């Protein structure tokens, strides 16, 4: 057993009633890169946090190089040889110190090094560490002046200064450009040769193709796939990650009538392929893609929060170039954003105030609000969507996640939209509320074009007439939601056909 770097057996973890890890078995081999994939909420980060000592497991064992491993806390985990580089790079570096001090920071923390810093010795050692890692930057430069990639390298180099047995990298390329990512991969290759066991967490297929020796996939707190025979089956891995159990919902596909929204040669990022898309009256179009596929960017551009690099947008034949969210709303383009807690919910308000917030103007006489109309209108929506509450004066915080989300969606159904954008409308929503929302969106779809941005295939199959797949900022596939060829859909999502365009979002 001693040839395993880390062996995790039957790991379980729950937060209250919420089971996040349900018996995870993972082994990491020395000198090998294991990629961990999983959608948001699959439990990846909880697994990492248990391994690096942030959380205690409820059940299960871990063995590190053949010895029992149960870290007391994060520091203990590091001392025993498990080092994690977290997603936000700036947690791993001190921006206001120079490179040499950053590389030697852990040395400064150790006791018994004397009171005064021996500057020359520190710089010599830092130079050694840097050259061993193949980092070529001025050691006197302040870290805050360096590029993101260099900062990332330094965070990893700091981690490596402790000679870990296991290195965990949590989405390390999420803010790197393609060339910067290449430098990171070269570093990972070097570490692999040194015999470090690497656990690499990422959604990005191009990364995974480049460095994976093995892939393990998590879904709903369990391992849903493990791939270690070369050539690795990437499509099977994506299938295991997204899951596409056929849903019981039957969608009567509408092809829509007149085109409402037309995108011509819309370019989301520099160097990305242009997008051409039509969304018709009465049609529900799902845009699916992995994290970083550009769908959030497209939503932002449509809602006036960002500008496209190039191309045109038209609504009902007229040019559409929203200058702000306010402008987009006034032109009849509404968006229910993702992450409702951050982007949508007004915690201090009750249901009626939350729901009617965008359209207060129509509910006031002069500037004075007509509270009764506000409440009546909200009550109608509460009944239509089946929002479970005592009254519309209940605080929004008293509702469950699903009901809160219904309120957030109802907000944009109060007035007729030209184009309705729903970004991850099923995030943190139970299955019942999800069905209610889906049914209502489809039921009211006439008179507008509806675009739904989703990461999960089964959600798209449940709500859409047409499924458009995005990858690397471009549209790579389109499927009518009728006898969908799931294999082809998954292949599109994993980017099997796409060419490397060199952009990352």
């Amino acid at each position, binding site marked *: 057993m001693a040839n395993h770097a880390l062996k995790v057996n039957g790991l379980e973890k729950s937060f209250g009633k919420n089971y996040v890890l349900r018996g995870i078995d993972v082994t990491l081999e020395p000198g090998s890169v294991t990629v961990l994939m999983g959608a948001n909420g699959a439990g990846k980060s909880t697994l990492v946090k248990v391994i690096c000592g942030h959380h205690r497991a409820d059940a299960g064992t871990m063995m590190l190089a053949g010895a029992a491993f149960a870290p007391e806390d994060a520091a203990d985990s590091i001392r025993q040889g498990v080092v994690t580089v977290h997603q936000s790079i700036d947690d791993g570096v001190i921006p206001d110190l120079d490179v040499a001090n950053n590389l030697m920071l852990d040395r400064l923390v150790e006791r018994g090094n004397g009171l005064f810093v021996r500057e020359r010795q520190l710089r010599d050692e830092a130079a050694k560490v840097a050259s061993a890692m193949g980092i070529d930057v001025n050691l006197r430069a302040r870290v805050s002046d360096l590029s993101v990639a260099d900062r990332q390298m330094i965070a990893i180099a700091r981690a490596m200064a402790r000679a870990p047995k296991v290195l965990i990298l949590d989405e390390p390329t999420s803010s790197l450009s393609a060339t910067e990512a290449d430098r990171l991969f070269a570093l990972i290759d070097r570490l692999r040769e040194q015999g470090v066991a690497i656990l690499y967490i990422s959604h990005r297929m191009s990364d995974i193709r480049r460095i994976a020796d093995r892939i393990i996939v998590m879904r709903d707190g369990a391992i849903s796939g493990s791939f270690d025979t070369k050539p690795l089956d990437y499509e099977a891995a994506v299938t295991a990650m997204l899951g596409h159990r056929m849903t019981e919902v039957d969608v009567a596909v509408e092809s829509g009538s007149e085109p409402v929204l037309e995108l011509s040669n819309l370019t989301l990022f520099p160097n990305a392929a242009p997008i051409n898309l039509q969304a018709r009256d009465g049609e529900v179009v799902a845009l699916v893609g992995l994290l970083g596929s550009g769908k959030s960017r497209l939503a932002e551009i449509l809602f006036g929060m960002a500008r496209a690099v190039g191309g045109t947008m038209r609504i009902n034949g007229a040019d559409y170039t929203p200058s*702000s*969210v306010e402008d987009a709303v*006034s032109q009849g383009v509404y*968006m229910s*954003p993702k992450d409702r807690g951050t982007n*949508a919910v007004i915690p201090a308000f009750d249901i009626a105030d939350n729901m009617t*917030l965008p359209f207060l103007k129509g509910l006031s006489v002069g*500037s*004075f609000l007509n509270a009764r109309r506000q409440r009546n209108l909200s009550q109608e929506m509460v009944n239509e969507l089946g929002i479970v509450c005592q009254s519309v004066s209940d605080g929004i915080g008293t509702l469950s996640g699903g009901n809160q989300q219904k309120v957030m969606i109802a907000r944009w159904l109060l007035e007729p939209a030209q184009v309705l954008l729903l970004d991850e409308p099923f995030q943190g929503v139970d299955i019942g509320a999800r069905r209610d929302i889906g049914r209502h969106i489809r039921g009211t779809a006439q008179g507008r074009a509806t675009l739904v941005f989703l990461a999960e295939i089964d959600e798209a199959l449940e709500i859409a007439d047409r499924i458009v797949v995005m990858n690397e900022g471009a549209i790579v596939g389109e499927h009518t939601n009728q006898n969908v060829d799931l294999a082809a859909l998954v292949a599109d999502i994993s980017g099997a056909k796409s060419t490397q365009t060199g952009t990352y979002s």
Partner: protein
Amino acid sequence: MNDRLLDFAIRYGFLILLAGLIVYFSLAAPGFFGPLSAAFVLQSVAITGILALGVTCTLVVGGFDLSIGAVATSALMLSAYSMVILEHPTVVAVFLCLGMGALVGFINGILIVKFRVPDLLATLGMMFLLIGLQRIPTQGNSIATGMTLADGTVAEGTFSAAFLWLGRHRFDVVIDRLLPMPVVIFVAIAVVIWLFLGFTRHGRLMYAIGSNERAAALVGTPVNRYKIAAYMISGVTASIGGILLAARLGRGDIASGNNLLLDSVAAALIGFAVLGAARPNAFGTAIGALFVGILLQGMTMMNAPYYTQDFVKGAVLVAALVFTFYLSSRRSGTGH
């Protein structure tokens, strides 16, 4: 049952305390209960209250305005300078002050919204700037009719009767010459701000900004414009306070208004506790100002020494804050 008791305590506790205070002082201090004493209390809180209503608007959008005290004293000095030295008529002096308040509020807003200076720091900087600025034209002297100016001439202007009327006129209510003009203006501003924040869509959107700015922006609220407007309201109300102070004193006294900032902020924060609102609100602010005024008046009539006043205000503020944040958090914790 326990929950309902807690809810009742949070809602009405502060008002009951206020009523209890009035009953206690009426029994313990002869002369406390009566129109003259009431008018005196109102008079003592009117200017602080007006400033507090302005700062309430900035609290609503999740900001803070530390410059209100300095805006008020600047308006005091500006009105004196305008009338005594430049010999402007009343209307010009009043509009100069209001314009100054609006401009300061606008600059505060721009600093916060465009230049991303944190609200406390921006308004702190503005406070310093104004405290310094108001002393420069008069070389640090107070302004009064007959003073000798830097160039050797004598200031011949006077505060006009119309201007002094703003600060000194008393309306006949119950007793002749009872209710002072500043109290009437305070009540009027309180009603306007109360209606604005509580019952207009603009007020509702301002509360939305204070609660979740990003969400408010994503429904198309022009967040920056509302924030700037809030600071402008705060600046204008502070300048009204300064005008009334000048009209009451009848001179441009450089040393007046030292306590204005702290007292008015305290009133606005005490207001959080009124009716269990747990957020800034105009009614609460007015009650908060009254509460402090009544407490001080009662204590003065019971011969408590003047130097205990700030201590008492502090104690009330801390109690109100505990009331607001601790009890309300317990309520929302058990509210499911």
